[in-house]
């Protein structure tokens, strides 16, 4: 297989470009989108590459249509992706819920910018944390990944596809305008060295009769994609194992929704990833994600030089959320700081995890600039 970009070597590219290349290497062959800053470069790269690798790239009439189209493509057997920013992501929320309910593997990239509304289209922000987790209606779960570098944007795009396919779920790649437009060194492995997961398909017609049944005991039903003679019926209504609507049966509803949530919650160990820096003996913990985590690493280094025992937990997955891990950190440290480019979103999850065992303080910043290391350091020193 030939690729329309260099593989097996390093390149110097923007975050948006890295996401497009990684998606293609992960096997994505369907992209539908609508122009929006700062996500358009993902679309433009897909538009350039997709026809060359026999994939589809199509510009839809809006973001509602974009996500609907990739869900349709996924049921026709394709790995599919769309990308947008806050306002477009809001338009996608209804069908994101449809993807959850119908257990459709898709990847949705939200390149965050300052909001609400049109806000600051060209500037980074982390204001969509809650939207990415709770934006759609009803009880649900999905996976949200948060890259901090262009290399991570690349790696996590591949991971997003693998998780979507493995767990038959929508995955949100939550990035931001800073990473989108920043150029960094990205190593693109040789395609044969990349681990690629493809959705579980039914082994036979009997298995295909249960597109929503836990027939393997792993909570993940095989996906009988269209056009194989399975006669699969997919609906957003509450449905039984065979996919038949059962809209007033409380037991069917609870069984379905709990399985959809549990298939992620009970596989947290596989899904949730994080990194720590100097956390082992830390008395002060910073918990951070995305671009701000980079300022936090520098802050930890500088604080350590001054003899302040700071450490960092950098979250790569913000949903499912490992509340227990936060609880353990809260038992160890005196205080937890949460720097975010918003007025407090992940902070609330951290507080819930800390459960009063350590004080949790938000270091908010809005307006479009990322926290400087000094923003974080000064705030922490004030508390020492």
């Amino acid at each position: 297989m030939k690729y329309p970009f260099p593989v097996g070597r390093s390149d110097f590219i923007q975050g948006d470009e890295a996401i497009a290349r990684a998606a293609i290497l992960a096997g994505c062959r369907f992209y539908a989108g609508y122009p929006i800053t700062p996500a358009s470069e993902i679309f433009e790269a897909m538009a350039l590459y997709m026809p060359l690798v026999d994939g589809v790239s199509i510009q839809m009439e809006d973001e509602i249509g974009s996500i609907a189209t990739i869900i349709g493509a996924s049921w026709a057997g394709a790995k599919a992706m769309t990308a947008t920013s806050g306002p477009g992501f809001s338009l996608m929320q209804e069908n994101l819920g449809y993807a959850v309910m119908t257990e459709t593997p898709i990847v949705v990239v939200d390149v965050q910018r300052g909001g609400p509304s049109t806000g600051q289209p060209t500037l980074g922000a982390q204001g969509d944390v809650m939207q990415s987790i709770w934006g759609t209606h009803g009880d649900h779960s999905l996976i949200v990944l948060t890259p901090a570098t262009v290399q991570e944007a690349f790696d996590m795009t591949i991971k997003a596809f693998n998780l979507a396919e493995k767990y038959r779920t929508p995955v949100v790649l939550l990035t931001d305008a800073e990473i989108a437009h920043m150029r960094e060194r990205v190593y693109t492995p040789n395609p044969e060295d990349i681990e690629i997961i493809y959705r579980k398909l039914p082994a036979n017609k009997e298995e295909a009769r249960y597109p929503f049944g836990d027939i393997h005991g792993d909570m993940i039903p095989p996906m009988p994609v269209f056009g194989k003679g399975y006669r699969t019926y997919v609906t957003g209504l509450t449905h039984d194992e065979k996919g038949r609507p059962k809209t007033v049966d409380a037991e069917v509803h609870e069984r379905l929704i709990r399985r959809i949530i549990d298939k992620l919650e009970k596989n947290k160990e596989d899904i949730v990833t994080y990194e720590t820096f100097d956390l082992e003996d830390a008395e002060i913990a910073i918990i951070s994600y995305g671009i701000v985590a980079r300022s936090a690493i520098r802050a930890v280094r500088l604080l350590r030089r001054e003899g302040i025992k700071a450490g960092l937990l950098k979250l790569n997955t913000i949903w499912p959320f490992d509340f227990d891990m936060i609880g353990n950190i809260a038992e160890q440290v005196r205080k937890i700081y949460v720097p975010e480019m918003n007025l407090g979103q992940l902070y609330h999850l951290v507080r819930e995890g800390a459960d009063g065992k350590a004080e949790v303080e938000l270091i908010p910043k809005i307006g479009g600039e990322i926290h400087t290391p000094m923003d974080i350091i000064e705030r922490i020193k004030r508390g020492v």
Partner: protein
Amino acid sequence: MYLKSAYEIRNKYLRKDMLPTIFCPGCGIGSALQYTLRAIDDLKLNPDEIVWVSGIGCSSRVPGFVNFDGLHTTHGRALAFATGIKLANPDLKIIAFMGDGDAAAIGGNHFIHAIRRNLDVTVILINNFTYGMTGGQVAPTALKGLKGTTAPYGQFENPFDIAQLAVAAGANYVARWSVFNYLQGINSIKKALQKEGFSLVEFLSPCPVSFGRRNRMKTAPELLRWYQKITVPLAKAKKMPPEELEGKIVIGEFADRDRPGLAREYEEYKKRAKKMMGWEG
């Protein structure tokens, strides 16, 4: 035309475990569904190569009743989902069952853009002037003066002519009938299913329970008689002055052309891209 018994069609194409349907007595959706299945049967199409797509509403429940691959999606979005299915697997034929509110109100933008792209899909559109499932609110097709729960004193807005909208947006095949015109209906669906690109067959379809009751037509026969009164065949309409056509609905075939469909256009686009980039193999 030889017509098989309706039971034969039912046994061959419906999912027995999904019956009975949710449709009320006198509802026209079952008729339009029967015409569609008869057309498929007549053309000897392979059910394994057909996907039924729908949005939300009474007519959108159809994909659940037929034994084919089916995607019952969100309100108004069926054609966007269909775009993904068709382009990801161009070998599949797509039938979309839609209501007038689904297609022309909440889904209006997807509808006109799917037509503009000439998406390869056959839309069977149930036009009953109302939102039947949610209890009789006015639809964007409701003629002036017709009553609904959200216009209890009679509709004060202008209606959409969906078929004309589809013609103007570029559909390859457009026809409109009432469900009373069963032979024309079946023949139109057969034509539509053999078309590349976008095809639409619109049916005026009785909804006595949510619509008729509020408009002094409590039964299906009353609604069908009303259709007889307000519909004008295209040939006749062409000779009528516009004032006389006021409040009437023209029925017939409005478009029959052969522009290339989206799936074929995209295949050509891929070839062009590879050629421009000197990219082969």
